[in-house]
């Protein structure tokens, strides 16, 4: 505790001395903005007596909407996780508690305007807390994420484009010792693109009957089947393109037939991301986890991996 509080007090001192408002990027003269970009060593040289901390990360999103939806989509799977920031963007990888599903998010630097991250930094965040803060942002707000060097807090600024309203929140960070999984590049046997609402509907409909769904992809199409106490159900989709509404296209690429069984509980959970993208991509190969990918603007993505259920039927 003493360490953190002393750092805060130095910050406060520094801020008052130079009288920099917290959102100095927009309001302060160029000279000071430049100073905030000085490498740390030089900064330390300039301010030898005080341990000088400066903004290490600054990422501005045109629409708060994106982050709100991403966090909403994953907060039921993952409680605490690290946002790994580096110069290429903000990444997140986390497994659910039972190590059955994995979330992998990448918000590329291009998705932000502007984006700056001077050094790799892991921001340990409790997603429930982050949701609470993000609730204070309106979908169309401009959202800026900021963090200092060796940060205790993540600073979030919401600017309303319509009015001059500006709100600012500090979210306490935590140390999270997280295992990072290496995901091998896989040539999937089947890749299915479909409208994200269609996938959501299939999952919800079958969920009413059973806990698990088997996905079979063959040259005839892709078939989702389930069997439960009250009866069975099956939904079959075939490749088709719609000239008027390309959003409704279903595209199946297949090198080899596949058949796998998955827990619907997790799939329904993944479908919370349907609002992020009009279309969703399912990638399957026998005996490997399913990949469900929602592509975001600027080659960013939100991916879910789900381990299959392994049957004993001989």
């Amino acid at each position, binding site marked *: *505790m003493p*360490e953190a509080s002393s750092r805060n007090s130095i910050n406060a001192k520094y801020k008052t001395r130079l009288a920099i408002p917290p959102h100095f990027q927009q309001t302060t003269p160029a000279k000071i903005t430049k100073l905030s970009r000085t490498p740390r060593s030089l900064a330390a040289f300039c301010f030898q007596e005080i341990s000088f901390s400066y903004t290490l990360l600054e990422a501005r999103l045109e629409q708060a909407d994106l982050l709100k939806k991403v966090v909403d989509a994953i907060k039921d799977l993952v409680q605490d996780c690290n946002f790994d920031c580096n110069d290429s963007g903000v990444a997140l990888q986390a*497994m659910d508690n*039972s*190590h*059955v*599903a*994995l979330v992998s998010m990448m918000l590329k630097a291009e998705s932000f305007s502007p984006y700056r991250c001077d050094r790799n930094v892991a921001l340990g965040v409790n997603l429930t807390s982050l949701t609470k803060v993000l609730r204070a942002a309106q979908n169309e707000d401009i959202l800026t994420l900021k963090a200092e060097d060796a940060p205790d807090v993540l600073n979030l600024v919401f600017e309303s484009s319509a009015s001059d309203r500006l709100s600012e929140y500090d979210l306490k960070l935590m*140390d999270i*010792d997280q*295992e*990072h*999984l*290496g*995901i*091998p590049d896989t040539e999937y046997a089947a890749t299915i693109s479909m409208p994200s609402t269609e996938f959501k509907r299939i999952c919800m409909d079958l969920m009413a009957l059973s*806990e*698990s769904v088997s996905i079979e992809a063959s040259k005839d199409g892709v078939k989702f089947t389930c069997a439960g106490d009250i009866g069975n159900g099956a939904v079959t989709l075939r490749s088709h393109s719609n000239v008027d509404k390309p959003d409704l296209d279903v595209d199946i690429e297949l090198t080899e037939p596949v058949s796998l*069984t998955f*827990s619907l509980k997790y799939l329904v959970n993944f479908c919370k991301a349907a609002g992020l993208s009009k279309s969703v991509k399912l990638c399957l190969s026998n005996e*490997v*986890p399913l990949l469900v990918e929602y592509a975001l603007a600027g080659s960013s993505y939100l991916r879910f*991996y789900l*381990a*299959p*259920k*392994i*049957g*004993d039927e001989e």
Partner: protein
Amino acid sequence: MLTNEDGETTSHLMGMFYRTLRIVDNGIKPLYVFDGAPPKLKSGELAKRFQRKAEATEGLEEAKETGTAEDVEKFSRRTVRVTREHNAECQRLLKLMGIPFIIAPTEAEAQCAVLARAGKVYAAASEDMDTLCFDSPVLLRHLTFSEQRKEPIQEIFVDKVLEGLNMDRKQFVDLCILLGCDYLDPVPKVGPSTALKLIREHKTLENFVEYAQKTGKFAIPEDWPYKDARELFFNPDVRPADHEDCEFKWDAPDVDGLVQFLVTEKGFSEDRVRAGAARLQKQLKSGQQARLEGFFKPVPKTEEQVKSLKRKNEAKVEEKKKKVKEEKKEKKQAKGKPRGGA
């Protein structure tokens, strides 16, 4: 104690049946390992347990005459003994339920560890910490605690334990022996913190015994064959995982057999037994949920990350110590003040 109409004990079957169902309901496929003949070294511990049982039986008699109902209950719990018949009945029940089991040559925990290490099972579930000494990669505790106790299941990873203690397995086993295991009497005046300090200082039990004899600080029991105990942990008598006894299969339950055994012979409710069998059947059909670790391997941490983690942990421990110290100080001060002042 639960009994049927004829006064035969049925609590073991009741427990086995419903706990197994609960495990299966949660998507776990259990494999039971029964204790075989105890190793010779355990005779001391077993004699002690027997003694305690005998005392409890005496206590029970006395309580029945003079004590309250609570006392009777207390002592009767302590007199519970697993007999050969109980084990045989449990095994018969498992067979009918389609759940595999194996009888270990000696210690069940040792056998569990071998199976877990070979990847035949994910983890060993036991309340006995010895399982860690047998080198089971994962130990689960409190797996079958009743739901009412609201105890979370503990998952202990032996590699993390060793990393955290900064020890190799040999030292860890020595530490556990010093802490007191089933095979040896504990050394008087050696508790957890002393034991850890001693092992850190002397590295091995050999050095510690030498030190204890030289200085006379610790009274090591006369008969203290620590080398034999260590040998038991490192080379226990077990079936190797590729042995034909270790081919396990989860089968469909034999519903009629279960009804015959539990309802006709033991007086269980037929509806419940049939419902239980249906649950077993359902889980068998739905397939088992795989875990991601089976497909994706963790990326090892870079040296830098490990270092920074260590530093952070140390800082945390330091902070905690400070806090405790301060709290103690405050308490002392509060005590020192006369009461009723403010």
